[in-house]
């Protein structure tokens, strides 16, 4: 648990967008490195804390990075420094490095989505959506309710049909036909269930005018504070990008503009933004260890 858990979903969405959009737009290692670092530090800290570091997923990400790096030069021959020739096509240093960067960027994006998944409790995921389209949100809620129910019913009906001998009928045509009717029985049940649920909804006043949506999340002052920090840091980064401060060319030669003061500020602002989840984790850890020592 960090201070970021249970934050308003809007704050978390803002953080995700403010991290991902600049890094994907800039294509610059100056931003990719802090984005990757921020996500890795946070997830590693969480993993170590809960003693659930998955070696398999680390291996998976490494393999992904290696593949993207190795394969990119096969498709892109843009670079000026050929390392070797494969059936007459140059395999260039620039394309290899671009592949390495692209792989890192891809992994950073995937890891940030994973961070978001650990930070936002499942029931809050559709929350923002619910504000924009309450009816759709209710529909999603009823569907999420219905799917596991249908799955369980399918298992029950299958078991019942097995025991009346439908599934071991020696005649395959007969068997297939019976299995088809099992499907139709499930459809009939679904419709019947829908009617009953509809009645239950009406009984509790669904369809009256002036429906409201219950919000379990409140946008508090802490949310406002963190959101303004996120937006302020992002403003600096965006300004830098707009001025071309972090411009980076991969082809034909790797060239970067010499960073001026603004570019340094932009990079630092972005790095701080990316480290917010990890820093909040550290802060909680320290606070709790002090708190515990006082107990």
């Amino acid at each position, binding site marked *: 648990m960090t201070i970021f858990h249970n934050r308003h979903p809007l704050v978390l969405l803002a953080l995700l967008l403010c991290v991902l959009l600049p890094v994907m737009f800039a294509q610059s290692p100056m931003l990719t490195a802090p984005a990757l670092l921020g996500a890795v530090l946070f997830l590693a800290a969480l993993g170590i804390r809960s003693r659930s570091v998955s070696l398999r997923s680390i291996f998976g990400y490494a393999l992904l990075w290696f593949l993207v790096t190795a394969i990119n030069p096969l498709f892109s021959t843009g670079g000026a420094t050929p390392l070797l020739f494969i059936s007459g096509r140059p395999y260039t240093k620039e394309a290899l490095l671009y592949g390495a960067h692209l792989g890192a960027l891809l992994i950073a994006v995937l890891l940030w989505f994973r961070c978001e998944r650990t930070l936002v409790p499942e*029931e809050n995921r559709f929350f923002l959506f619910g504000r924009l389209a309450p009816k759709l949100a*209710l529909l999603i*809620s*009823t569907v*999420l*309710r219905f799917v*596991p*129910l249908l799955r*369980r019913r399918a298992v*029950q*009906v299958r*078991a*019942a*049909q*097995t*025991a*009346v*001998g439908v599934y*071991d*009928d*020696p005649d395959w045509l*007969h068997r297939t036909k*019976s299995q088809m*009717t*099992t499907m*139709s*029985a499930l459809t*009939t*049940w679904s419709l*019947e*269930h829908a009617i*009953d*649920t509809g*009645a*239950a*909804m*009406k*009984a*509790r*006043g*669904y*369809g*009256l*005018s*002036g*429906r*409201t*949506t*219950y*919000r*379990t999340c409140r946008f508090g002052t802490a949310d406002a504070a963190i959101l303004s920090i996120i937006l302020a840091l992002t403003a600096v980064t965006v300004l830098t990008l707009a001025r071309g401060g972090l411009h980076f060319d991969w082809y034909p030669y790797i060239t970067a503009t010499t960073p001026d003061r603004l570019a340094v500020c932009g990079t630092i602002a972005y790095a701080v933004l990316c480290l917010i989840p990890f820093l909040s984790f550290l802060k909680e850890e320290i606070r709790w260890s002090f708190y515990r020592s006082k107990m």
Partner: protein
Amino acid sequence: MELLSVENVTFRYPKASTDALHDVSLSVSEGQWAVLCGLSGCGKSTLLRLIKREIAPYGEASGRIFLRDSAVRGEADAPMLSDRESAECIGIVLQDPESQIVTDTVWHELAFGLENLGLPSDRIRRRVAEIAAFFGMEEWYRKKTYELSGGQKQLLNLASALVMNPRLLLLDEPTAQLDPIAAADFRNVLRRIRSELGVTILMAEHRLEDVLPDADRIFLMDGGRILAGGDAAALTTFFTNNPHPMAQALPAATRVFLALSGGSVFIGGTDSAGDTARINTAAGTSAAFGSTVPLTVSDGRQMLRTLAEHGTASASAGATSAEATATEKESASAEGSAADGPGPKSAAETAGKPALEVSGVRFRYDRLLPDVLSGASLTLHAGEHYCLLGGNGSGKTTLLALAAGILSPYAGSVRLSGKKLSSFAPGTLYRGNLALLPQQPRDVFTEKSIREDLTAAFLRTAPDKASAEADMLALCERLRIAGILDSHPYDVSGGELQKAALAKVLASRPKVLLLDEPTKGIDVRGKDELADILDGLLADGAAILSVTHDAEWAAAHADRCGLLFDGEVISEDAPGGFFDGNAFYTTAANRMARGILPGILTVDDIVRALAEVAP
């Protein structure tokens, strides 16, 4: 002050030839707990649905229904109850816990009705918090609704109705689909709602033994009419003068009282030896307990003690003579059963191989999960009815699935007439050998009418279509369901559907019949009918294994009982020994007579024993 009044309501479903409700009038006062009782199909659900306008059935209705001064139905000169008031003031909980849940999370389900009323978020938060605290739901407040147990689901439905702050709570057999423990929890919550919140309750129920002690007013319905209304004493008096099948659904103590005070009770089915035994013992019985009708087990014990001291010449002599008659009776019945059908012991001797033999089965649903069954064994002989009892989640249904070959054990074996289930050739196991009636009878139906389904099932074993149809009709006549053959499986009552499902399962002429909770949601008449059908099958040499929570039914109809506990079958015995040895897991009659009259299993036993004792 009357909260609900129903005046001369008549209702007829479209295309029906008779009225579902005929000239029904009743009233319920503020804060009362009223019960509508009657056999299934008597019109109690229809009446509840007419009161809750949003889910009223289509059809021709007349008469008037008022909630306080507002008319629930139109055409009255009184002001109409608005849609908003109807949603807010009248809450309803129906039988099936599953189909009333709308959303995917518990908290959203609680908030749903309040969202519909258009309450602002902070008011919703407060009400939801209050109701969650009242129900003690904090632990599962954040859970997904599909993760809940059946009892929790029904409590959630009750909480979601109650969160609207209704003045009238309508309940349509709310505990019919629950196991006894969950049902008792549900009734405890209802008691708190009545006493702490003062909500008026109108409940339809056919299991009177559970609700009679709490009810302020009971209305007995039959064929769409109200036969009687009043408190428990008034109802008992009514039954004294008018025999009615529902008298059998009374609590055990009340049934004994009824029999003693000269009322006619249908004892243990229609063909019981006593047949509506009218025992006019001890002229003073009624006088002895005055006008208080015993409703609970402790009331019943009090009554039996008084009787033992008061009624007989010498209590101790009476008790011993009762004991003597009980043993006599047991030996007599053992002889009797040996003569006309194989009893538990003689079956073991006569039949070479048991019809079904489950030996040392172990099963778990996942490698990482604990064992559900850890070495469970039981044997079932031809002509024997074995009832397997056990708590919730003890693995009864899993054991049936293993016995039916739907699941396979990872150790141990299941043998049918000495042959392993896995060594049956495809297409032979479920023909003429083994059949399972699942807990939800609708699961066996896949066609649009019961007739199509049954014909298809009979065709699988019959040589030609004509003989299949003839066989099918003969069986349906026997089960008394010939009249519903052209209905859709969803359109018939629970009891009828179960009999139809039984017909489909019996189409393959199984030697071993497995039943999962056969009495769940079935009224007293349905239970007796089921017992008759099963007796017929047993006489034809079938073996029946039923899994049930219903101790009363098992005591009356089983040849042998077993308790499944901690993954194993323990304490296997004939019902007499089984229930008499248990202190808690036994019938109400046994608990009532413990230490006063020996060898008692059913109400009939008490009545017979008292008749022997009486001068």
